[in-house]
């Protein structure tokens, strides 16, 4: 049972990976025989070990596929509603979409004081997309992997935001925008000045020169911590939530009494998770707005 549980959990935490196995890697076939690769090969990974051996040259097909699919779905929905939107009386889905747009617009207006064409659409994209990706967490953990398993796909991790690549990727894009707008608004000099003349600022140029490395060290950490914390916060929350769903799912196979309890727990955790996924999407959006607002501020 212990071995089964471990397999169950690690199976759920393994991505469907396509990548390049290095030359000399010994592949293990299902019947136990081994094949040594003579040259580097792009292939689907059979399990976590091969995925780990691929290193950086690998793509999580499931994460990327789900994230792209969900993003495309939500963008398609918003695009269709945008085409339908007119000055007439809105109805049905359009009401809902406009409610979200107005909410985002107000949030951006409150937190972002510069003028920018990108911040509001960026916030909308983040909020809706991250929400959709998090929402996959509410689908019982075994449903989609079982469906794909029946179709012959061995691994399927359906919640893209439990993949650190996905969350860090988004955070890095936000980081790139931060750097871009910092330099665009304040100029290279202003940006460098911001990194080197704070927090220790003195009138005496000699003393200031001594403080520059210290300032740079501190400010760099502060700057780099922003995207890292942004990405890891979402990842950590969703990964932990997913983990608990998996552990609850394990209880289903442990008898009627535990199975019943698992059902109650599953329901309770899912209800709680409705709050978590919305909150995490909102936090990611809010922090992005705040970071970009800081990038637009000229001292």
């Amino acid at each position, binding site marked *: 049972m212990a071995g089964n549980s471990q397999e169950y959990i690690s199976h759920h935490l393994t991505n469907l990976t396509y990548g390049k196995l290095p030359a000399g890697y010994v592949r293990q076939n299902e019947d136990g025989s081994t094949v040594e690769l003579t040259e580097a090969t792009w292939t689907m990974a059979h399990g976590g070990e091969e995925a780990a051996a691929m290193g950086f040259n690998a793509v999580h097909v499931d994460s990327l596929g789900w994230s792209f699919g969900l993003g495309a779905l939500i963008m398609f929905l918003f*695009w269709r*509603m945008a085409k339908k*939107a007119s000055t007439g009386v809105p109805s049905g889905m359009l009401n809902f979409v406009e409610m979200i747009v107005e909410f985002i617009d107000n949030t951006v207006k409150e937190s972002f004081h510069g003028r920018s064409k*990108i911040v509001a659409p960026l916030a909308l*994209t983040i909020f809706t*997309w991250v929400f959709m990706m998090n929402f996959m967490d509410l689908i019982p953990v075994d449903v989609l992997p079982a469906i794909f398993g029946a179709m012959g796909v061995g691994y399927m991790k359906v919640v893209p935001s439990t993949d650190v*690549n*996905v969350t860090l990727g*988004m955070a890095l894009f936000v980081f790139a925008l931060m750097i871009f707008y910092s330099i665009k608004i304040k100029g290279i000099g202003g940006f460098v000045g911001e990194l080197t003349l704070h927090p220790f600022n003195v009138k005496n140029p000699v003393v200031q020169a001594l403080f520059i490395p210290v300032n740079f060290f501190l400010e760099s950490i502060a700057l780099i911590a922003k995207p890292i914390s942004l990405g890891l916060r979402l990842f950590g929350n969703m990964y932990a939530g997913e983990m608990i769903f998996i552990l609850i799912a394990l209880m289903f196979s442990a008898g009627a009494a535990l199975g019943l309890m698992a059902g109650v727990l599953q329901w309770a955790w899912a209800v709680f998770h409705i709050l978590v996924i919305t909150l995490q999407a909102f936090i990611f959006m809010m922090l992005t707005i705040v970071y970009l607002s800081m990038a637009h501020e000229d001292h």
Partner: protein
Amino acid sequence: MNINLTLIGQIITFAIFVAFCMKFVWPHLLGAMQEREKKIADGLDAANRAARDLELAQKEAAGKLREAKEQAAEIIEQANKRANQIVDDAKETARTEGERIVAAAQGEIEQEANRAKEALRKQVSELAVAGAAKILGKSVDASAHDELLNTLAEEL
């Protein structure tokens, strides 16, 4: 858990979606919403204006009505006055006419009476003369006693 090319893939996907949202979604939705907001505000303004206009018109109509009533009352009063005057005039005319007729009738009566008196007097004097003649036995020379007789007649 490994960092790999998925990271790059996600950055590209993110960039595409943000660009799409910026170009095709956000401006249309927000534009339509702001336009609608303006339209509603205009509509409310127009409604307010119409309500104010209506109130003014009602006030004006009430004023006109009051004025018309006042005029009508005035006209009626004038007509009444005129009617009274006419009646008074007619009364006055009738009264003077009546007085005139009464006066004329009285005049005539007096005349008649005088005439009757005269005739009576003449007859009395003649009767007196005749009586006297009978008394004296002879006819009185009318011409000789004419003066006397006339005086007598006048005394009667």
